């Protein structure tokens, strides 16, 4: 049978397609239940929402009718669900009655700019370090790397942030200590920070994809190191050129300058767990017989490590990463608060201080939905990498002749 290569090849597999459909249905049910729980949570709280809005008491009955709080509970529930799925999260009680969704449109890109690179760079660094530590198996290296990993992983997040600020921002004055931009640079422009944040995010994503393509294409070439070096420097040069031409380079650099310290803190906090787990699973796989076979047939040490050990060892680490993601997102909230990075986390703390219930509930539902999307995506990627996962949850027999 001839195999036709195309980007959605994994959908050809009927098991895979069924797995994806099943996973999506499960995710939809989970989202419904999550929203219901949030709805019940608001109604379980021991006060009246009308008392939290600052209006004279004579207006309160009218306000109650306007907010729909006099309706029966099931009707409020249907309104709540309908407005959530049409993207309407209500209006803030405090911040000038702004719609919550427009607040998020300004804040979400900043949080993503911190959280996405932080999570993936932390994961990548952990994988890489764990792989080499397990492969080299040097006593002093293992001990020092493990201890460093544990110290950073269990370090008290705000304190680590403050130590980093005190050393690199206040002591050495390399980086700004807090805030998201330098207002002197941005004075007199109409450019929004969230626009720059979106551009930066898409630059990183596109650049990463092109780099991945270059990596795959040159995999079997003779002088692949040269090709890769040339390709990567070409990507970097092209990106820099495009930014310079657009005229936004200065603003982007300013934001990146402010991003460095929070990002480093987030990476330091997250890489340890991945590294320790990768080391443990690598050592586990190294004891298998197929590694000996691979060595015996004369493969190079690098090939054995990459293709025969690391590729198997990565699955449990990947599964752990999926479970860890909510923690990373919350960790980035704490770091936002510590660095005054004005994203969703900072908004959450402010809303909680001022009893701004719509904003708080909006953040909870958006973060929950975001985590769910990540779970589904990573589950599908994991199933794509490991065919065993596709059939393990199916109720009927997967074998068909």
């Amino acid at each position, binding site marked *: 049978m001839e195999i036709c290569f195309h980007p959605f090849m994994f959908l050809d597999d009927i098991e895979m397609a069924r797995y994806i459909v099943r996973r999506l249905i499960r995710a939809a049910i989970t989202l419904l239940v999550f929203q219901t729980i949030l709805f019940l949570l608001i109604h379980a709280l021991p006060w009246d929402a009308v008392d939290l809005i600052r209006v004279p008491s004579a207006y309160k009955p009218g306000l109650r009718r306007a907010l729909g709080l006099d309706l029966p509970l099931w009707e409020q529930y249907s309104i709540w669900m309908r407005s959530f799925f049409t993207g309407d999260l209500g209006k803030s009680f405090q911040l000038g009655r702004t719609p919550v969704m427009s607040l998020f449109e300004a804040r979400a890109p900043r949080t993503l700019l911190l959280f996405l690179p932080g999570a993936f760079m932390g994961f990548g660094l952990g994988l890489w370090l764990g792989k080499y530590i397990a492969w080299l198996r040097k006593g002093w290296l293992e001990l020092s790397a493990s201890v460093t990993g544990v110290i950073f992983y269990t370090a008290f997040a705000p304190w680590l942030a*403050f130590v980093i*600020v005190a050393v690199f921002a206040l002591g050495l004055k390399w980086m700004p200590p807090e805030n998201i931009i330098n207002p002197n640079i941005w004075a007199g422009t109409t450019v929004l920070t969230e626009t720059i944040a979106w551009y930066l995010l898409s630059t990183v994503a596109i650049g990463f994809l092109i780099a991945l393509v270059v990596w795959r294409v040159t995999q079997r070439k003779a002088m692949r190191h040269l090709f890769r070096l040339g390709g990567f420097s070409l990507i970097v040069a092209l990106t820099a050129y495009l930014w310079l031409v657009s005229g936004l380079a200065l603003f982007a650099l300013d934001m990146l300058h402010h991003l460095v310290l929070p990002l480093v803190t987030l990476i330091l906090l997250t890489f340890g767990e991945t590294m*320790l787990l990768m080391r443990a699973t690598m050592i*586990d796989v190294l004891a298998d017989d197929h590694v000996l076979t691979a060595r015996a047939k004369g493969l190079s040490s690098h090939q054995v490590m990459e293709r025969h050990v690391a590729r198997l060892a990565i699955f449990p680490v990947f599964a752990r990463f999926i479970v860890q993601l909510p923690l990373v997102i919350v960790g980035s909230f704490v770091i936002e608060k510590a660095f005054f990075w004005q994203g969703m986390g900072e908004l959450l*703390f402010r809303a*909680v201080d001022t009893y701004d219930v719509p904003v708080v509930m909006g953040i909870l539902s958006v*973060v929950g939905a975001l985590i769910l999307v990540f779970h589904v995506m990573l589950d599908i990627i994991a199933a794509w990498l490991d065919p065993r996962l596709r059939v393990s949850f199916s109720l009927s027999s997967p074998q068909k002749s």
Partner: protein
Amino acid sequence: MTDIITKSPALQTTPLATDIPVWRVRLRLLWRGIRTNVALFTENPIGLVGLAIIVVFASLIVIHPILMKSVWDRNVYDPVLGIDLAIPFHPAPPSPEHLLGTDPLGRDVLSQLMHGTRSAFILGSLAAIVNFIVATTIGAIAAYFSGVVDSIFMRIADLVLMMPVITILIVLGSLLNLEMLHLAIVIGILSGLGGTTIIIKSQALTIKVRTYIEAARVAGGNDFHIIFKHIVPNLLPLSFLYMTFTVSAAIAIEAVLSFFGILNIRMSWGVMIHTTQYAGYLLDMSKWWLIFPSSVSISLLTAAFYLVGRALDEIVNPRLRKR
């Protein structure tokens, strides 16, 4: 049955078989199991380091009331209400009277640190016990009954995994009046229902298919008896491992929440940092004794429980076990 065993020629020669009562055999087996596990645990320097740190902190808890009764004056050294009026300016740097200095309100930092250790241990163990009860019971029940019960509990686990725990606690803590006990229960339930249940369940599934479960069923044991007498005891090592991770997580979560001033706790390590921040000394490195003792303690104790957990992991986790 016993007659056949005792009269078999293979066991006649050994001194163990005939006259020793069953409970002593059981005790000896238990002791041997403990000894092998301790030997395996001590092989690993990482676990020992963690254990040593935990013992040091535990000794602080014991020393504190003794010091308060004997050497330290209650009016000066009380962790919450004490104040040293002999020193004109607070926070004062470390001195022979106050080994770790005083905080902005004139209280002794060392005394606060010791008192905070007790809060951390109480919170951690409570959360771990709740986590243990929830995860083991639900994991065993889901694995044993499978089918509908299993998928209901697994969907709940999906849901809990989706919840950002600290975010929910921040919301609950600021809208309600959360105290230590509530916090421990919420952390225990959320961590128990989520990841831990899934892992415990997969372990319980491998136990469920063993022959002794079938034997117990043939002998007439009901579901309750099989779950709690035959499955749960075999889950204990793995649950104990996840208890240590829960302790670690609970201490870190409490510190973060107290630091942001959300909880209703009188004295803990997080509250100490909150006091420092409130007085505006947070980034002042010349006043290191305000923030370093509590933060380093939080990091050390969470690291210690995490290390013990990792070392236990290598003993009880079937995937990593070397035997």
